[in-house]
């Protein structure tokens, strides 16, 4: 019997690092390739500052919900009700603010709490009564769409308080007077973010090296960071030359960072993956599986509520059609982003990239004048293709 080679001394060779990250690089490269494709086919319109800002605004609520949906999918469940819940919350917000003149801060807080309660009710049936989430949330989808129409009595309600509208249509205030049409604060903020990301990468690499852990080759690492810096810097420049950063972009960025950290690095996040990977084994390892599942649904409800508020603020009105079909875009974003339908696999960053792949394609195809009919066909095929590639890679 041979001893395994002593691995404490030498850095480990092999698949670990690459396997963890290759998938994400692949996703990133696909997104860039899609953007480049549309850049040439639309004569650069897609990266015009105005259009870029629009892409962000149009997809913000999908991205926000994808963060919660990813966690639901990782635990091995699904939430079909998020579109209806988002629409319902928008309607409740309109009712409170427009009809009852509730201050928008209080109304928004009430709405988020209500979203949490809705998530809790659905999560209760899924987690503690073991009713398949597909059925519970399908019921939720019908119930909350119906309630929304009831709240609105079939009409649209609006407009909102101008301050509330700023949630979606506002931009961060400019500290310095803008020079040559460039919003300096936004540019500085964007570059700051790029520096921060690159600095973080260097720090974690240094730490890995000091502990003899396998890392990527330095050349690759350098190029990767240069690319990250260049892309973020360029996007920040484009955004800064329109009207600066939209408020919702800041909210989104903070949420993405928080959820990425939460799922990757905390005990709680790790346990969610374990529950999705093998619920029984997780339970026998002392993980409170039902409680975790319950929590992911509560969280999903809150994020759906936030998305509903953002969407209502963007339209400046609550309509009975709000949120229709959102759940499909959100779920598609997660699966395109590499989440597994069997649970246990998927990353927050992947879901965000998936959402933007969908968003950029929507936008690019609209600019190209492709009808809504064939847009659907193409999006469907991209979803199928992305999952096929994933399954194929898993099998190899």
């Amino acid at each position, binding site marked *: 019997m041979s001893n*395994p080679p002593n*691995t404490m001394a030498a850095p*480990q060779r092999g698949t670990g690092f690459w396997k963890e990250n290759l998938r994400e690089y692949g996703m990133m490269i696909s997104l860039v390739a899609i953007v480049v494709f549309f850049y040439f086919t639309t004569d650069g319109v897609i990266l015009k500052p105005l259009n870029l800002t629009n892409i962000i605004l149009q997809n913000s609520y999908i991205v926000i919900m994808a963060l919660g949906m990813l966690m639901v999918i990782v635990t091995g469940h699904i939430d079909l009700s998020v579109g209806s819940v988002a629409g319902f919350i928008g309607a409740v917000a309109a009712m409170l603010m427009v009809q009852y003149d509730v201050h928008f801060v209080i109304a928004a807080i009430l709405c988020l709490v209500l979203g949490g309660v809705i998530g809790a009710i659905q999560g209760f049936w899924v987690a503690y009564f073991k009713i398949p989430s597909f059925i519970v949330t399908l019921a939720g989808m019908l119930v909350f769409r119906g309630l929304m129409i009831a709240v609105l009595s079939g009409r649209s309600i609006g407009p909102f308080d101008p301050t509330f509208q700023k949630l979606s249509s506002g931009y961060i205030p400019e500290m310095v007077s803008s020079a040559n049409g460039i919003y300096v604060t936004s540019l500085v903020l964007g570059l700051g973010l790029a520096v921060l990301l690159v600095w973080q990468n260097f720090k974690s690499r240094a730490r890995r090296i000091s502990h003899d*852990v396998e890392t990527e080759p330095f050349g690759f690492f350098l190029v990767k960071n240069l690319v990250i810096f260049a892309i973020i810097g360029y996007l920040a420049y484009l955004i800064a030359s329109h009207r600066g950063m939209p408020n919702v972009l800041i909210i989104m960025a903070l949420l993405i960072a928080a959820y990425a950290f939460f799922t990757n*690095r*905390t005990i709680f996040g*790790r346990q969610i993956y374990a529950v999705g990977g093998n619920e029984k084994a997780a339970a026998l390892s002392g993980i409170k599986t039902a409680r975790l599942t319950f929590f992911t649904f509560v969280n999903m409800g809150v994020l759906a509520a936030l998305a509903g508020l953002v969407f209502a603020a963007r339209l400046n009105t609550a309509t009975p059609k709000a949120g229709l079909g959102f759940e499909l875009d959100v779920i598609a974003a997660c699966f395109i982003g590499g989440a597994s339908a069997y649970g246990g696999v998927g990353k927050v960053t992947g879901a965000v990239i998936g959402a933007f792949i969908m968003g950029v394609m929507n936008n690019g195809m609209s600019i190209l004048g492709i009808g809504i009919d064939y847009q659907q066909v193409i999006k469907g095929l991209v979803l199928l293709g992305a999952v096929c590639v994933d399954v194929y890679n898993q099998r190899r």
Partner: protein
Amino acid sequence: MLAPVVSADRPPILEMRGISKSFGAVKALSDVSFTVREGEIHALVGENGAGKSTLMKVLSGVYPHGSYEGSILFDGHERQFRDINDSEALGIIIIHQELALIPLMSIAENIFLSNPPSRFGIIDRSAVHERTKALLAKVGLSEAPDTLITNMGVGKQQLVEIAKALSKDVRLLILDEPTASLNEKDSAALLELLKEFREQGITSILISHKLNEISAVADRITVLRDGRTVGTLDCHDGVVEEDEIIRRMVDRDLESRYPTREPKIGELIFEVANWSVYHPQHSERQVVKKVSMQVRAGEVVGISGLMGAGRTEFAMSVFGRSWGRNITGTVRIRGQEVDLSDVHKAIKAGLAYVTEDRKQLGLILPEDIRKNISLAHLGGVSTRAVIDDIREMKVAQEFRNRMRIRSHNVYQETGKLSGGNQQKVVLSKWLFTGPDVLILDEPTRGIDVGAKYEIYSIINELADAGKAVIVISSEMPELIGICDRIMVMHEGDFVGEVAGEEATQENIMRAIMRRKERDQ
């Protein structure tokens, strides 16, 4: 030994010549030759990864002709199977370790799943019923043909699989670890059946890790090691010693199959008193009946019993009430009564439970070694709920070295490890929680001989480190080999206790039988 039914000059039914098969750079089989004579029971043995399953997949056409080198002769003619249908058409039937029955269908529906007797495309129900009955009689089952598979025990399900094979005019029956999940009684019945088939002229290939079974029924034994044939032993040339088989399998002498240990038994650590458990669905059924047990530091206590005796149910109900309902009784650890109302509390109280089903209940298979090891004690690699990935990796590497887990690195998916290495990962997970009391449920099931020895050594180390170790096993020789004391469980009650040095299979069985007689 039985009178030889098979004479040496019987013609071979199957000859596999010079079979080689590679997966990428890995050579799974190199130049394997394997000959089976008509009407014999031929055992195929070897450690996990020796190439037994690969060889059988080549034979059955799972790996089609052209994907391997070498030739297959069946009935003296060269065969080139394209898929499993080709081999089945000739009567070569494989029964896999994981049964391929559909739980919510009846016995009859399962047996005639692919080719039900029919008239004008409509299934002839009465013919199905009659033929199923006849087939069940052949394998000694008296169940009604419309019994659902899910309502039968594993042992009977195995017999249904065999009946299904018989429905296809089997000539060569291949059984992959048929007794792995059966108790002693069902195993014995199955082996008897194989002998009956031999009388009827059906040839069998038996893949098994249980050497006592092999020496009980096999006519010849072929040993594979590292993808090569080591040799074929003829059981009619005199008695084949189990140790002889093992030596050929692992290419080394095991002085003993069980490492020795000087027990250093200390203070009383673990005490269960009046423990009762009821069935979660049938609430009137008491599965564990007011049992008590005590285990001291440095002591290895075995729990023996037939399948269904309530051993796993007892262990799982103690471990955070993971099984059963209306659980009553007390548990003391080092004299203190402990609250074990959920798994989390049980772990905190110093308990660890290694499940009998490591794939379904023990591991997160898609995740790597590192994440599996830290799972039950994430607090040990974290600061304020944030996981320190470097610390986690070092912990994993330490266990990988200490337990000799064979893998490329700690980032390898546990689903891709062999059974023995998977079990070492599960053990690592529980050792990392720093338990005082370890309950190991069938710790060596489906593991090859070499890895078993390593697991036994780990158990000894744990006992020497002053832990209380409880081992549940269906293999009596194993319990006799490693335990200081063996408790015998029967129908939810402890019916006997045997000191390790006095334990024999006979007196364990006697304890069970005595109770059975008393009950009757």
